[in-house]
């Protein structure tokens, strides 16, 4: 007796193979990314496969952020110590004889202005650190610079335009805390990108090299966007 067609058997198998997400795809060709867990902390200076929704204004359709970098937090220690020093300073105001000659309301005003300046300095320092980022997507490298509150510079280059990558780690603190500067030479309009004081420069360089190899493969296979 021949088998009768049973539709339920076919239904059990997916008709179309599930497409893997770009963050899963990167694990296929990058050994560095395979080792890294997706970053959930928005303050991470080294954020591989960030799960927080990171979008940026020049983002292309279907472009995904694979690695987000900031300056290593240890580079902000001088600013942190400055703030600490400024917080403690009012305790020494009493040493200045002129301070006690002023009326009480003027003494309060000095303290208020002093603490306001500390808040302003801290806010400006934090914003500059937080938004000064280097992004590696599956298509491009992007350098977003906010050197101060009124200076903004955004540069981007396609991965296949990258020609040379150099990571420099120099000095005791950079060796201990594993951070350094990565110089990327490109054939794009901006010929040099500098990822300053980023954590794990060796891993970043290795990842960029893996991206370059993948781009070459895509070119050869005609998959390039």
């Amino acid at each position, binding site marked *: 007796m021949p088998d009768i067609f049973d539709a339920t058997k076919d239904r059990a198998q997916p008709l179309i193979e599930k497409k893997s997400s770009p963050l899963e795809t990167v694990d296929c060709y990058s050994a560095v990314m395979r080792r890294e867990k997706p970053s959930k902390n*928005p303050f991470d200076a080294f954020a591989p496969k960030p799960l927080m*929704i990171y979008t*940026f204004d020049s983002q292309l359709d279907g472009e995904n952020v694979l690695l987000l970098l900031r300056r290593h937090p240890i580079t902000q220690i001088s600013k942190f110590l400055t703030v600490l020093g400024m917080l403690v300073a009012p305790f020494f105001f009493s040493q200045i004889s002129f301070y006690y000659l002023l*009326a009480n309301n003027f003494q309060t005003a000095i303290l208020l*202005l002093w603490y306001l300046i500390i808040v302003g300095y801290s*806010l400006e320092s934090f*914003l500059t650190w937080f*938004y000064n980022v280097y992004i590696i997507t599956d298509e491009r490298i992007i350098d977003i610079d*906010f050197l101060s509150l009124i200076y903004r510079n955004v540069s981007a280059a396609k991965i296949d335009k990258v020609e040379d990558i150099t990571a420099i780690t120099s000095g005791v603190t950079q060796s201990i805390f594993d951070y350094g500067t990565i110089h990327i030479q490109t054939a794009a309009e901006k010929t040099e990108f500098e990822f300053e004081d980023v954590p794990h420069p060796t891993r970043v360089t290795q990842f960029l090299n893996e991206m370059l190899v993948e781009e070459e493969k895509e070119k050869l296979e005609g998959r390039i966007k």
Partner: protein
Amino acid sequence: MPVEFNHIFFSFLKILFILAGIIYTVFAVVAIRQIHTMQKSLMTSLSGKLKILGYVHLVFAILVLLFFIVSL
């Protein structure tokens, strides 16, 4: 004479404090504008909280400026 000198000195000091307060308030407004620009450049999960932080900072700056004007 010293009473008159004191009056002139403290009036001058008050003007200096008010000027500092105004400059700081302008800085707080620029900071808010900049937070908006930065958020356009990079959208993160903290965007909303940073915007609130910017506005709270501005409110404090205005309150301090008012304190300088009223109580000095």
